[in-house]
């Protein structure tokens, strides 16, 4: 050790400096992202903003008053500070000074209030640079609500939605392509990237091929493909399980016998095999609507296979009706999972037949939980599953548990899996981090110019640009749509 100590330290220092030099943030370049979804609006108020991909787009173009970090802590956004009255009904936010929309106009408290009033029933007042929100009832989840993409601040009255995010829209072809340019005056600092080009409506296979050919830097991948791509040496980014795969009955049980049959169905599904084989080991077995990392009590809801008990429940009913099980034919894994569930059901004497019709007796639903906040996520999940909204306004775990247990007691939903969102990231993209909630941080990534997709043949922005697409011209440094 004495003989080799210093030379080893010296060599290590050189290697470290070389490595740092290769990963050091750099300005410039265009990142290419391919997505399977195809949003038709950039407005945060669009219903599509509840989808993860669309929410991420919103956060590239707009800012919210506050945000939630991976630890669940509220972080300042356009609001630098806030206060809440003891009754938790009156909130006061102090806005950040000097923030401008991408058309150059200043973000005032009036503009923020007008934006929030579009979708919320709250009483919102503005004075100076502060914003007051008065609620009808106490709501501990207001900050998490304000962090949702739908509550991003947008300039009201503008033909084209104007935001304050790290990027601005330069070109937008609905459902096909979006070209973002760096917002030079972003209050959080100019992004490293000059531009981001996003193409929509690409199948998983197309995305995979594009990544393999170096024509994309970030792609979405199917949950079931993640293990294979990991095995192939790909860089996989994975969110916390934020999607729920569940069986949803079209109506409440009409009799005890029907409840028993639904219990039998829930008990006979071999979730572990489905997860290990069909989902590539990804995701978590679900007994509850919210994932355990979010609620903390999900393990209390059973999700284990129990064929014996399922057969007992089935045996208490003379005749089992023929259930049709619908699934989304566009989602490849849904079909196989539905087929497996039909087989599991047959094992205990239940009659389940697959159908793609929307009016099936049972639907294999896949929903996104839009927030890491449990109350908001449960409200949203209940609404998306058609179970009604419990309208929780508290972060109390007991109340949450009771509300979720009540939803499960309706026997209308059988949670199956909580699935993460998976992305594969190209080698040229550096600094990529994905939040626990699946959020991107494109403002902080940079391209290793020697490996950028834009520098590779056949992957230039110009080559993929739709000549018929409307171009948002720069006017005084502001993008406007014709």
């Amino acid at each position, binding site marked *: 050790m004495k003989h080799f100590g210093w030379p080893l330290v010296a060599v290590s220092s050189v290697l470290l400096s070389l490595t740092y030099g290769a990963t050091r943030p750099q300005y410039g370049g265009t990142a290419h992202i391919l997505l399977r979804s195809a949003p038709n609006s950039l407005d945060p108020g669009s219903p599509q903003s509840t989808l993860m991909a669309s929410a991420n787009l919103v956060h590239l173009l707009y800012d919210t008053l506050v945000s939630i970090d991976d630890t669940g802590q509220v972080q300042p956004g356009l609001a630098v500070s806030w206060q809440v009255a003891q009754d938790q009904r009156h909130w006061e936010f102090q806005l950040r000074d000097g923030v401008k929309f991408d058309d150059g106009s200043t973000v005032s408290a009036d503009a923020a209030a007008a934006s929030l009033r579009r979708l919320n029933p709250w009483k919102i007042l503005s004075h100076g640079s502060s914003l007051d929100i008065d609620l009808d009832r106490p709501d501990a989840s207001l900050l998490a609500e304000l962090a949702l993409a739908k509550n991003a601040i947008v300039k009201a009255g503008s033909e084209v939605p104007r935001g304050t995010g790290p990027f601005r829209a330069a070109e937008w072809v609905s459902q096909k392509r979006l070209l973002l340019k760096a917002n030079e005056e972003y209050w959080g600092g100019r992004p490293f990237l000059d531009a981001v080009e996003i193409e929509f409506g690409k199948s998983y296979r197309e995305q995979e091929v594009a990544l393999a050919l170096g024509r994309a830097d970030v792609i979405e991948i199917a949950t*079931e493909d993640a*293990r294979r791509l990991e095995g192939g040496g790909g860089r996989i980014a994975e969110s916390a399980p934020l999607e729920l795969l569940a069986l949803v009955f079209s109506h409440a049980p009409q009799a005890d016998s029907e409840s028993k049959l639904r219990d039998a169905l829930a008990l006979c599904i071999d979730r572990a*095999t489905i997860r*290990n*084989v*069909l989902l*590539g080991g990804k995701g978590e077995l679900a007994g509850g609507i919210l994932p355990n990392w979010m609620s903390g009590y999900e393990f209390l809801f059973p999700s284990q296979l129990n064929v014996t008990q399922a057969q007992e429940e089935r045996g208490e009913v003379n005749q089992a009706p023929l259930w049709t099980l619908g699934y989304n034919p566009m989602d490849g894994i849904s*079909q*196989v*999972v*539905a*087929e*497996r*569930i*039909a*087989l599991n059901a047959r094992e205990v004497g239940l009659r389940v*037949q*697959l*159908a793609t019709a929307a009016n099936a007796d049972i639907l294999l639903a896949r929903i996104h939980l839009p927030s890491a906040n449990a109350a908001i996520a449960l409200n949203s999940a209940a609404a998306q599953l058609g179970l009604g909204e419990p309208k929780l306004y508290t972060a109390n775990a007991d109340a949450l548990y009771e509300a979720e247990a009540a939803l499960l007691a309706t026997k209308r939903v059988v949670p199956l899996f909580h699935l993460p969102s998976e992305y594969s990231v190209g080698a040229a993209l550096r600094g990529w981090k994905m939040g626990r909630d699946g959020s991107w941080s494109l403002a902080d990534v940079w391209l290793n110019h020697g490996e950028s997709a834009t520098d590779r043949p056949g992957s230039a922005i110009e080559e993929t640009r739709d000549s018929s697409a409307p171009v948002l011209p720069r006017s005084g440094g502001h993008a406007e749509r014709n």
Partner: protein
Amino acid sequence: MSFHRKLLLAFSATVFFVVVAVAWTVSSLTRSAFDRITQERTRALVRQFQQEFNSRGREVVKQVEAIAAAEPAVHMALALRGAQPDYGAYIPEAKVIADSHQLDFLEFLDAQGKIISSAQWPGKFGYQDASLNVAAASQGAYLKPEDLPQGSALGLFAVRAARGTDNLLFVAGGKRIDQAFLSTLDLPAGVRALLYENLAPALSAQLLIDSSGRQQEWAKIAPIIGQVLADGLEHTATIHWTARPDDDETIDASPLPGESGRVAAVLLVGSSLRSYVELNRHVRDVALLVGGAGILLAFSISSWAAWLVTRPLERLTAAARSLAAGAREVTVEVSSRDELGELAEAFNRMTRELGEQSARLVQAERVAAWRELARRLAHELKNPLFPLQLTVENLVRAHQHSPQIFEEIFSESATTLLTEIANLKSTIAQFAEFSKMPRPDFQPVDVNQIVQQVARVFQAQVDSHTKIRYRLDLDQDLAPIAADRDLVHRALCNLVLNALDAMPQGGTMTLLTRKRRDQGVRIEVRDTGKGLTGEQCERLFTPYYTTKPNGTGLGLAIVQSIISDHRGTISVTSSLGEGTSFAIELPHNGGELNREEGAASRLNATRSRLERESTSADRR
């Protein structure tokens, strides 16, 4: 029924039955030919189906063998060796390989029949395929129902072991037998193929397909499918889809056995009967046309034949009728020398002999009548002659006595002579009257009025006889009839006189009139006298027959003659001790009135013409 009609009926019936027999024969031959063609078409289609089936089976076997020999199967088999397979790695494998080999079904299974990868049900990995028959790994393709997530389907399967893997892995692949398969069959016009997939324990309409998809015509076709499934034999039935025969269809159902011998499917070949029905309809139309023409021809022939046969008979009939009506010089033309000619000659001979006999009979009757007339005249004239002779002899003797006595006797004798001469004149007058009965002069008359006049004539006589009562029973609705007033009056007087004579001890005499249905009149003269015997009644109207001591026997004969001249009838009913009733039936005789008027006008015209000729002759 006339002979003519019988002949026509016989001819028509013959033609009708011949046409029906021919039409039935043609129809039967057509049906049998059509059935034969249908059977041949069905057999050809079944052969074609079998060939297509075998061809597809060979194709399936070939594809499955290719898959079993390919690298992915070998790799899969090697991965299975001594290790639990990673099902997740093989889930899409079967689907990809099935697509590349154009198979609808493909499964990779381990030696225990556990599914490694399934194209038709990817989620079925790890499950046991109970239907896998390892023994079939060396056999050809076979039919098998296959469970699918959306239900079941019928497939043509083949099983092969992956090559060189010591039966570690089996490949079971197949193709669907569905409407797409049926659409590959080359069907002649009017023929269709249906397939019943025996995928459920009970018959189901959802399992019947044709080349266009699910078949809706289930209820009428289900029984024949049930029969084939029950006994595994071929069956044929004719199905009437609608009330129209054009829509009828013959269904031939053949079983398609599966691997275990169970009927896996039923092939139904439907042959439309439309062309047969149209042909049959054409035959019927031709038969009707021929039949109609035949009946017309039969009518003509029968008319001609009837004319030939029945004309002589009709002449004979007419001659016989004339003969019956009293004609004596009746003959028929003998127009042939056959049986009918002989019949005509016999008829003519008979009429000749009948005429001769009748003439002889008339002559004999005339002689008899003259004899009777002479006898009656002698009798009637002898009675007054004897007193005349005695009176004259008495006068002769009285002439020898004194003139005074003679005068006395002469006076008495003269009276007697006059009386007897008057009787003679009366008798002669009656004969004369009978011989000179005038023809009635028809005029509109009121019968009631005549009856009342007769009653008034005899009123005084009735009144003088206190024991006789007179009763008139007249129908006031009588219409006038055409008759000779005087003759009717005379006839009634005669009858009333007879009635009064029949009641010397008194009684009731009734005069009655009634209206007849033919607008004629019925007149009855009834008495309550001593009555007549049956024999008397029968002879009563015979001339010169009388029951009265002083009667001439001409009174009722005259009455009968008058009534007969009026085209009426007179009848008598009588019971001994109760009385007698004479009934006169007089017709309306309206035609006689017109004839009388015509005759009168003709008479006037003739008279005027004669007067004009006489005047012109005088002038000349």
